């Protein structure tokens, strides 16, 4: 029964670990650059989920906006991870935008986004 409690009590962590591994695998192993970027997005989203899940409080805690007559710490969820993740989301969007711009540059040059095709093109150019 302890194992069950352990697994259920920490289910948020299992979710983010699985998501993160999917993203990580796509980032390293996929052949297509666009798919690598999608993997990067999943990877970062998993970290955001992890942070946000640390802010939750059971026992009737509500969103972090002060309401009349309620001013105790246990009545609101923790605002700090939300703040950090707002920042991290913006960082993630920025990285994604820059990576897309670089992808467009690559596509203009090689007319493909498949890694092995680009390598073949480069090999051919070297021989000429």
């Amino acid at each position, binding site marked *: 029964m302890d194992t069950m409690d352990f697994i259920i009590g920490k289910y948020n962590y299992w979710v983010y670990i699985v998501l993160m591994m999917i993203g990580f695998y796509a980032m390293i192993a996929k052949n297509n650059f666009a798919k690598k970027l999608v993997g990067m997005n999943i*990877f970062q989203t998993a970290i955001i989920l992890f942070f946000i899940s*640390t802010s939750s409080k059971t026992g009737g805690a509500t969103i972090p906006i002060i309401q009349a007559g309620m001013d105790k710490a246990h009545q609101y969820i923790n605002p700090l991870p939300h703040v950090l993740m707002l920042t*991290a989301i913006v960082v993630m969007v920025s990285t994604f935008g820059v*990576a897309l711009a*670089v992808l467009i540059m690559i596509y203009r040059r090689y007319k493909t986004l498949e890694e092995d095709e680009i390598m073949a093109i480069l090999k051919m150019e070297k021989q000429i």
Partner: protein
Amino acid sequence: MNEQASILIIAIPLLVSVLNIPIGLLKRSLCYPLTVFTTLSCVYLSFVIADTVINTGNISYHVGGWEPPWGIEVAIDHLNAYMLVIISFVSFVVSIYAKNSIEKELLPDRIIYFYTIYLLLVTGLLGILVTGDLFNLFVFLEIASLAGYALVAIGEDKAPLATFNYIIMGTIGACFYLLGVGYLYIVTGTLNIADLTRLLPALYHSKVVLAAFAFFVVGVAIKIALFPLHTWLPDAYTHAPSTVSAFVAATMTKVGAYVMIRVMFTVFEPNFTLNALPTTEILGWVASAAMIFGCIMALAQTDLKRMLAYILVAEVGYIVMGVSVGNRAGFTGSVLHILNDSFMMVSLFFVAGAIMYKEGHRNIKNLSNLHKKMPVTMGCFIIAAISMVGVPPTAGFFSKWYLIHGAINAQKWFFVAFLLLSSLMVAAAFFRIIQNIFFQPSESHTTHEEPVRDEVPCSMLLPIVVMSISLLVIGFFSGQIIDSLIQHAVPKGF
């Protein structure tokens, strides 16, 4: 003024970089002097900060007026002050060098944006150095990384491809770092470095803290291109514009090494890092592998910039080695090597950029008789090269001496052997180039004519000369640098 200097060193380059665009749209030629003056003011502010730290002790500046665990603290001790001086001085010299070099290598439309992003990169690096908050460090790390990606991407034909690998690897590194921050946050509830130092010792048995340490080290190791994770570095630094290669090679990995030292010895205690974990063994052997591998690959290259990039991989190995042996001499050597290596890298990449500027290529095999065409540049190249090898009067000797001393004190005889071996291989790599320049007869058609003297423009030559002379000056004053700054930066317990 003095107490605000620690924030102005971030705010000034940042606001100028923002102003650069409207000003550049009005008159493009104003961007360059503006950038030079801004970096010059950073140098001034960094000296003010270093002076304050040496004379009155550590600075703790509360941004927004909130005291540390709640607000963000700007915390500066001797190590930060030392790094600040290095980075701002290098950025100043590189910004002087930039003008002619990028006008030759970049599309004219991009020049305004180049200066803007260059200043943002400087801001990001300085921001990493001054902050006392782990999450804030991540934010500035991302500013620096994004600016670095962009500056690499505007290089040669193959640069975008190299940049994409750099982005993927860099993002993995940054995410691992962020995950480490999250793990420390979930067991302590704080992000402030000083507060973490206070809270963590009670939690060293926790598996979360161990995992956080592992993620920090791996994440930062990707950022500083430590050996098995270095794959993005040679491509990216070879294909970037020469100015960018010089700046990025000299600063990004050094700031990464600073983050590593901060995490290993300030956030965690040296006792935990070195005794409770096999850090010395793992990092030491990885660093040895990096030194040998970097030198072997450097010997195999024909492209000058690519060779320098592989030597940079080896140099990162030196720095990590000094940190990992875990004693006073090793740490001193490591921190001193950060200074020496960034100056040596700047001068060598400057010379590579100068050769690119005049010759249009940088193939090691076709450099013959360059000493007649560019005597001053080649003289500076030789000074930088012998400093890289570690010949006594130059700066490189002193840091290597301390590193070897540290390895001997730690009784790691293999590490001593690897340090000496890789120095020999660096020497071989550079003497190959020097031989090509001086003693190889030119096989081109102009064998009978004496080559005419043809130096690069003054704005490029001056930084090269300044950097190589400063290598001799640092060598001369390294005792004083250690006395006034580095010895105070050595963590307690060494």
